[in-house]
């Protein structure tokens, strides 16, 4: 019998396929669990552009109103904008209806605390406990709140970004920009945002409807059409986002898609160059290219377990001024502790304006490394066993989240997936060496696993 793998209820919320595994009952009850956790007050609600978001939103509203919490409807809004809105407007929490980079069949909800942050792991576990136990808050009075509406929540976000860049410097350049929001939230906000920075904006894949015009994950493989379009026309830079606007991928003027790793490094390049040396945080699977940028400007790199909230937790603990993940998630606390493609776009344009260089020229200053991401099918316990043996073999490795081993010319990170029965391997090194190193590691693991 086929395993059911298309529903995930975990610390980052719930995600499933509409009409198969995700139905409004789960949404109302999970919302009631969240409401029970926060008690009372006002909670902002946003969706990405998926049409199913409207149905989910109704279920969320019902759960909130029944729990005597006022829903604040912010309509279609990027995830980072909602997080910032919750914090700046001193709301009691937020709910984002999105399946992020998953295709249109999927949807889900993610919860945000009163600081505008995704729930920290223990709080999230508490939420799941309440959900499974079904011990929800019951209304005490026959007096239920109305839904409030806010149509310009993005402005709060935009204002914060504009404070960390030199707007005039960017405007003078009159950059010609191609933007590919993939039919996501960027379809609504990108043009206005970049035009405010004096850019001449051309949009591609910005139709909002039942189907995404491309796979919403902004990876090189999904951006071939966009890349071709860049090649044929004359643009200074291209940007691609995922459906909820937290992840970014840069395309240079030749149409080369950078991918998340290089995008993160390039976005941090200009920002770190103007800051007093301190610390940055990336996760254990992030490329050394970002470390190279940090080194260049005197920053120390701290590595956190994989997952946005883990990066954020380490950033707060270490008082880091920047951070991110290699999937194109750039985090700048001056704006907010969240992955933010809009901040990413602004920083990259600012960097190009400051150095007066083409984006390909900035990228050329960074080392070229090859990264390999692969999986080996393995149960959670099997993966755990392999990682223990590997840990003995590499006593100096970093064991915070699986095992990361750093050698001079390469590194690899092995961990058990939270969502699938696989062992994930991420490795990076010189083009001519890394393939063999990983092939050897892979065959060793496969032999041990037998």
């Amino acid at each position, binding site marked *: 019998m086929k395993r059911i793998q298309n529903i995930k209820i975990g610390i980052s919320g719930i995600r499933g*396929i*509409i*009409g*198969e595994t995700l*139905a*409004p*009952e789960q*949404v*109302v*009850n999970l919302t*009631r669990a969240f409401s029970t956790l926060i008690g009372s007050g006002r909670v902002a609600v946003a969706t990405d552009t*998926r*049409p*199913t978001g*409207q*149905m*989910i939103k*109704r*279920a969320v*509203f*019902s*759960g909130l*109103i*029944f729990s005597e919490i006022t829903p604040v409807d912010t309509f279609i809004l990027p995830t980072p904008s909602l997080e910032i809105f919750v914090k700046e407007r001193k709301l009691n929490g937020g709910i984002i209806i999105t399946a992020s980079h998953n295709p*249109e*069949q*999927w*949807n889900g909800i993610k919860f945000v605390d009163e600081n505008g942050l995704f729930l920290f792991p223990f709080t999230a576990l508490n939420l799941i406990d309440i959900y499974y136990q079904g011990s929800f808050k*019951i*209304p005490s009075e*026959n*007096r*239920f*709140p*109305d*839904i409030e509406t806010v149509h310009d929540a993005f402005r709060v976000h935009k204002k914060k970004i504009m404070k960390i860049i030199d707007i005039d410097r960017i405007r003078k350049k009159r950059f010609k920009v191609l933007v590919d929001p993939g039919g996501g939230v960027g379809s609504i906000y990108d043009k206005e945002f970049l035009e405010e920075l004096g850019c001449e904006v051309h949009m591609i894949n910005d139709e909002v409807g*039942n*189907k995404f015009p491309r796979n919403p994950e902004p990876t090189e493989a999904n951006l071939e059409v966009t890349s071709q379009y860049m090649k044929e026309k004359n643009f200074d830079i291209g940007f691609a986002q995922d459906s909820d606007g937290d992840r970014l991928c840069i395309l240079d003027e030749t149409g080369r898609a950078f991918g998340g790793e290089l995008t993160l490094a390039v976005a941090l390049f200009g920002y770190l160059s103007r800051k007093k040396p301190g610390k940055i945080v990336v996760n254990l699977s992030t490329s050394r290219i970002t470390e190279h940028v940090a080194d260049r400007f005197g920053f120390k790199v701290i590595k956190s377990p994989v997952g946005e909230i883990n990066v954020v937790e380490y950033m707060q603990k270490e008082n880091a001024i920047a951070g991110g993940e290699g999937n194109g998630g750039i985090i700048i606390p001056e704006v907010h502790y969240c992955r933010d493609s809009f901040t990413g776009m602004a920083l990259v344009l600012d960097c190009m304006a400051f150095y007066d260089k083409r984006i390909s020229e900035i990228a050329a200053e960074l080392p070229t490394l090859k990264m390999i991401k692969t999986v080996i099918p393995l149960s959670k316990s099997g993966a755990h066993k392999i990682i223990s043996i590997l840990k003995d073999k590499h006593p100096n490795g970093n064991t915070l989240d699986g095992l990361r081993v750093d050698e001079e010319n390469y590194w690899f990170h092995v961990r058990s997936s939270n969502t699938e029965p696989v062992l994930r391997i991420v490795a990076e090194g010189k083009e001519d060496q890394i393939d063999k190193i990983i092939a050897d590691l892979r065959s060793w693991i496969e032999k041990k696993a037998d």
Partner: protein
Amino acid sequence: MAIKLSISGIRGKFHELSPSRVVEFAQAYSNYIGGGDILISSDSRPSGKFIREALIAGLTAAGSNVIDYGNLPTPILQWLIKNASCSGGVSITAGHNTFDWNCLIFLNAEGSYINHIEGEEFFNVYHSGRFITRKYDRIGTYSQQESPPESYFNALSINEKSDKFPKFVVDCSNGFTEDIIEKLSLALHVKMIPIFSSKTNIMEKDPEPTILNAQLLGTIVRETGSDGGFLLNSDASRVLVVDEYGQPHSEELTLPIFASIILEKEKSHIVTNYSTSNTIDQVAKKFNSRVFRTDVGQPQVVQSVQDLKTTIGGEGSGSIIYSPFSSGFDSFYFIRTIIQYLHQNKVSLSYIASQFVPPRIYKETLFLPQTKIYKILERIGNLYTPTVRLKDGFYIRNGEDWLCIRASATVSMIRIVGEGESISDEIARIKELVI
């Protein structure tokens, strides 16, 4: 679980109708009627806010398109459904129940309450617990409609006018707002003063149309020098008349008054329930028509009106249906009929009421735990030889006197209604038995 499930609706107190339960009923209903367009509306009860959201989520998830008429009384929603090509509707209202209750009323494609066969099929889907929700590109749409809709009031409007501009007070029982009354007054060429019609500043009151609950309305009619008043329940399915002296007339007279006005102009038999006063039989006799009696409840009465093809139906609790116009009980149509009659005949409400002898009717309720109700009904049943066995109780007739004892479809209680000299003794006997 203390919700009441019947074809009269899914009813519970505000904390008992949880969002997930509403979602399940919505999905079951959408599955049962097979999708399409579904019209929805609600009264002003605060719990309607979360119920509406859960209802929309469940209906659209299961593939139905929701057309939302906002805050609108059930009779208008029923009329809209009857006059549109849609699959059905849901009204969020607990009608005559107090404000802490709410209810989902499921309407069929004709705009009538689902009948007992439809109800059985629908509840089978619900109780199976397996609902089909649609894939991402097949879920239903949502749209909001102008409310209140002009079309209903255009259909209701009359040509007759009076030289002097009559004035009436309308008690909306917190069910709907003054914009409805404004449109109604324009359609009927009268001035209307709405009370208990605020959406925001709600003063709770018992919305059941009874003489007792009409005292305040009576005072206002008197103080404002109005030509009369109408006390409606919160979904405008029941109504009681107050004359120009501020005197309320029993809700049992609503149907007889209505029937006698209609029967002056057209011929029809009358459908009512076993729990309604004999006054209606006197009206029928006068116009040489017949009275057919059914089990109690809007679904049963309206179904019989449709089956027997009568024009007139209604219940002693203050409801009427005029089947060429409505597909359910409609107090606005009652008000229209009365006002048209007043315009035409230059008479007063007190004159109309004086044509009827006030019925000697007794209404008692025995609140009981849900688990005891049917046991006690059986014990009461052993006291009598029922003339008619109802689906929810007994009807006993002795000459002109009658007694109807039944379990309420909406609240956990036994209702005893009777008429005639001997009835107070009988009620005392029953109460003794129960205690």
